[in-house]
């Protein structure tokens, strides 16, 4: 442990990422407080257990076992000096340069590289295809939708592109955003699934993906 808190969770940007569905995106963190290690639950779904007792926040001592999902993390204070684990730190920030803007020549070079990369991407003009959502199951106002705007809302709301029917359907169940490199599915009042797996934050959609929002199943397809 260094002086910075260590985060544990399912999202890949955690200091200790755990790829398991029982683990919340940002599940817990461990930090130093007045010379002691403290573990804290970050409002996780399945909770944090210290020596098999559920805790919100607890001080740690040598030999303690933290349980997150099905993973045990052991507290080893005997070796703290010998194991400087600083891998989670941001690298030392390079010397502070004054902010500047790329000159015209450099920018042109970058744009050329971007154009070359674009030709390989799904949005390139050569492969210009229309993204669509086809309804496989569930109650919606249409059977197929073309996606055109930067924001596509799936829900009960009048503002929704994909309008879901049903009494307890949320206004904004999920949404799709158009980015430079494709379309991304994000949470609304529901955490949608892509190909059976609940998303953790904005997730890029690939041709043929199966989207589940509540009881509605949609097929994301690029059509000619």
């Amino acid at each position, binding site marked *: 442990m260094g002086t*910075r*808190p260590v*985060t544990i969770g399912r*999202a890949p*940007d*955690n*200091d200790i990422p755990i790829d398991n569905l029982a683990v*919340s*995106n*940002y599940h817990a*963190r461990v930090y130093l407080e007045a010379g002691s290690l403290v573990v*804290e639950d*970050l*409002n*996780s*779904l399945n909770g944090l257990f210290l020596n098999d007792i559920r805790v919100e926040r607890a001080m740690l001592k040598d030999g303690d076992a933290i349980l997150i999902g099905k993973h045990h993390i052991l507290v080893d204070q005997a070796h703290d000096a010998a194991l400087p684990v600083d891998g*989670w730190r*941001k*690298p030392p*920030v*390079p*010397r*502070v*340069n*004054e*902010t*500047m*803007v*790329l000159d015209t020549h450099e*920018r042109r070079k*970058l744009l050329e*590289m*971007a154009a070359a*990369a674009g030709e390989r991407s799904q949005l390139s003009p050569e492969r210009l295809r229309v993204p669509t959502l086809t309804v496989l199951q569930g109650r919606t106002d249409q059977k197929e939708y073309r996606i*055109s*705007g*930067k*924001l596509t*809302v799936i829900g009960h*709301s009048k*503002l929704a592109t994909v309008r879901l029917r049903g009494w307890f359907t*949320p*206004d*904004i169940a999920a*949404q799709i*955003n*158009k*980015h*430079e*490199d494709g379309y991304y599915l*994000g*949470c*609304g*009042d*529901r*955490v949608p699934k892509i190909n059976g797996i*609940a998303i*953790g*934050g*904005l997730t890029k959609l690939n041709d043929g993906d199966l989207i589940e929002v509540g009881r509605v199943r949609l097929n994301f397809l690029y059509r000619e």
Partner: protein
Amino acid sequence: MRIQTGARTDLGRVRKNNEDCFQMEPSLQLFVLSDGMGGEAHGEVASNLAVQTVITHCQQSENSRTTPIFGEAQPDVSERTNRLASAIHLANKKVFEMAAANPAQKGMGATIVAAWVEGQRLSVAHVGDSRVYLLRAGTLDQLTADHSLVAEKVRIGIMTPQEADASEMQSVLTRAVGTTAAVQVDSTEQMLLVGDTLLLCSDGLTRMVTDPEIASTLLTSTAAQEAADRLIELANDYGGVDNVSAIVLRVTQKSDGVLDRLKVWKRNSG
């Protein structure tokens, strides 16, 4: 829906003047943050002018439907979002013209990031490497794509995020407000939900503090102002090499009824 706000800007631990600047306009639900550049006091001039111009233009468009649109309107976003982008095009023009008229200010410019809420709809527009994040259902997503050399290289796939974090080129922007006669403005939209937290910040924060640390700070702060204060303190604790600014927006229900609290609880528990 109601928005609870918290914000702070700080010199940091190294710089001698604060070129960051922000303004919140609660009557318009408009929030703008800018990071100036240009040495001497010119960065401050640029960021202040940019923020003021955006606020004034949006205010005018609310009062008069005939307010002209600057830049090219995009067909894939709402009128409101186009208006916000228009405000940034105008800010670019104003800063550029001021710099052109005053040789001492040559090359001054600024990043800008703006968030405008109308009902449930959030419009975001930006230029440069200041960011907007959305924390929802325990997950932190960056809604803006940095216009910096390293970020663009990562997006093209010729640089890894790790190389970008260690690069000496982090201060090189590919776009800025006021350095060229015209600028390309990026815009996006979201539908906001009760329980959402938005963060607008300058690179002084994101260069010092990792995304998981930002997420855990937002998750463990009760009030928006507390979250903003703690983020600034973190950046300073880690060295505070640059000016640092943060606007934190919490979306809450007016009545805070049981049903809404249940909804937030359900969403947060996956």
